[in-house]
């Protein structure tokens, strides 16, 4: 799809993930939540792909599918040349060290009964044959890398602040030298002054270790800062994907335009001058998405064809993809 000679590190094609809805005494399946409904993208080595969208649009599900934390319904996920969509058991387990995840809530993703040292060394326990000394020195190395003092290794998660806990989560994700990391809203739970620290750390690590990120967030300005390319998602589908600069300066899809205009500017002089597109209503339920283009119920520019036919996902510029009938 992307006409590049370079082989992408992650190649996702027509990914679908539906969660069944059961009802009644017999637990008959009465429908499905189409959390991810046909998504294709590439992520190249060393790059950051930003994934933005409103809550409930399926961003996190995409991240989890790509890491095979779910058994996906259909589609293909190729990581570093190997198809992992249908891997199972020991084969999948052998692939796990290459792909890791940093979670949103640094409070919930750390076991409160384990010390920081044992949290960070747990992946080493599971996947590597290392002696105790080797593990200890690796943990110390990792703690240095994320800016935690080594002497904290014997403390428990509750003794740390939110930003520091997120650093523990990052150290754990790095333990097995992964190539690809899914960052699922890693800064959403942090204060503004701490967010910048964590984002800078993620960037430094990427430079040093050549990491590839899928960065999921609803903070559009942070994604602009961090991502090389950005995908915008709505109700289980991508509506637009473009290099970061292009997407923010020249958004083509009406949803992207509305989303960008809704971000409040931290500058009162600018705030008055923005032509804000206010979307009416809420995101429809992914269990019963609207026909045709799923966005047509809220789209300020919807025309008749939008209600009937789903727009095709196609290239509309240099590395710029979109799905909308209105884009020429």
């Amino acid at each position: 799809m992307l006409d590049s000679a370079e082989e992408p590190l992650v190649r996702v094609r027509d990914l679908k993930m539906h969660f069944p809805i059961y009802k009644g005494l017999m637990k008959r399946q009465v429908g499905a939540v189409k959390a991810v409904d046909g998504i294709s993208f590439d992520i190249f080595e060393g790059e950051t792909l930003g994934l933005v969208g409103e809550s409930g649009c399926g961003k996190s599900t995409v991240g989890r599918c790509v890491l095979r934390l779910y058994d996906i319904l259909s589609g293909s996920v190729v990581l570093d040349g190997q198809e992992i969509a249908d891997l199972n058991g020991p084969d999948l387990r052998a692939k796990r060290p290459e792909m890791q995840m940093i979670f949103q809530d640094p409070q919930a993703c750390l076991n409160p009964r384990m010390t920081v040292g044992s949290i960070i060394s747990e992946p080493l326990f599971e996947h590597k044959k290392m002696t105790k000394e080797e593990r200890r020195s690796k943990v110390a190395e990792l703690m240095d890398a994320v800016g935690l003092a080594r002497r904290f290794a014997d403390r428990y998660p509750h003794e740390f602040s939110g930003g520091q806990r997120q650093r523990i989560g990052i150290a754990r994700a790095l333990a097995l030298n992964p190539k690809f990391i899914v960052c699922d809203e890693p800064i959403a739970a942090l204060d503004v002054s701490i967010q910048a620290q964590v984002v800078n750390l993620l960037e430094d690590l990427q430079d040093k270790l050549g990491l590839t990120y899928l960065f999921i967030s609803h903070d559009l300005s942070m994604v602009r800062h961090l991502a090389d390319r950005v995908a915008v998602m709505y109700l289980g589908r991508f509506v637009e994907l473009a290099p970061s600069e292009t997407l923010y300066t020249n958004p083509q899809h009406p949803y992207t335009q509305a989303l960008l205009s809704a971000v409040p500017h931290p500058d009162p002089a600018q705030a008055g001058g923005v032509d804000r597109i206010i979307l009416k209503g809420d995101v429809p339920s992914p269990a019963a998405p609207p026909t045709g283009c799923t966005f047509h119920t809220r789209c300020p520019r919807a025309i008749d064809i939008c209600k009937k036919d789903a727009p095709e996902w196609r290239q509309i510029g240099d590395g710029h993809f979109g799905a909308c009938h209105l884009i020429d």
Partner: protein
Amino acid sequence: MQDARATILDVANLTTVFNTRDGMVYAVNNVSFSLKAGELLGIVGESGSGKSVTMMSLLKLLPSPPAEITNGDIWFNGRQLREVSDDELRKVRGGEIGFIFQDPMTSLNPVFTVGFQIMEPLRLHMGLGKKAARIRAAELLELVGIPDAMARLRDYPHQFSGGMRQRVMIAIALACDPKVLIADEPTTALDVTIQAQILELIKELRHKLGMAIIWITHDLGVVAEIADRVAVMYAGQIVEHAQVSELFSNPLHPYTRALLETLPQMGGERAQRLRSIDGQPPNLDHEPVSCEFAPRCKHVLSRCTQENPKRRAVTPEHDVACWWQPGQEGEKDA
């Protein structure tokens, strides 16, 4: 123009402490501010900076013990709220001062219909009968932009989406025509497109109803958009306070400056690296005797670690609590 308006709420030297098992927590220290009729005051700060505790102290919404207001005056509409009886205070809460909480999920009662919850303050505070209250409730729902209002009064909170629930919360807060509306992070739990809807709604309602609003948030973007004046809080104190345009164009406190610098921009050149504020927010386990921001401050002076700066007026409408002056060499400046 705004000076001509009457001051409706005046808070002076408010101090609230929590007496916990692990010792005292000094959550609000010597906070003073005032609010004029029809004005929107934004209060910005990180979590734990005392924004919410300040507002809850005003209406004695904090459980006591552990919370205790140890000092300060709260003048509301000619009355000293710290001294009024519980009965009278109950009339103020939800009657003259409306409160919107952060999380619309947990602040509505799941076992009562939305209609019942909007009618409750109407019947208690305004003495309306059931029928009249129902009609007024439907009007309120319409006012906050919920279609088919009369029918939706019979629905339960779980039948509404997050944005709609927040609209219901706003309707409840507005029910008795409050003179002051306190909104505690009302859009933080919402998506940006829904947040834009709510901001638009608040702007519109302000025009229509002319009430004064205190808007608590950690999002400087939201404040820039709707506030008239802004107070920045850090470690339970107001460190800077100014008109919104003045604050954003001429921030004087190093914390305000750093906050504005850490925000990534939506337009213009992309910064190579985000500026960050080093270190952690302070523990509040001691009374502030020195500047609480000093350990993280770029411009720290020797005086900062010895004396807690008082708020000093730079212009009549701009004050800052800091020893450092822009242009002055700090000890870490190089």
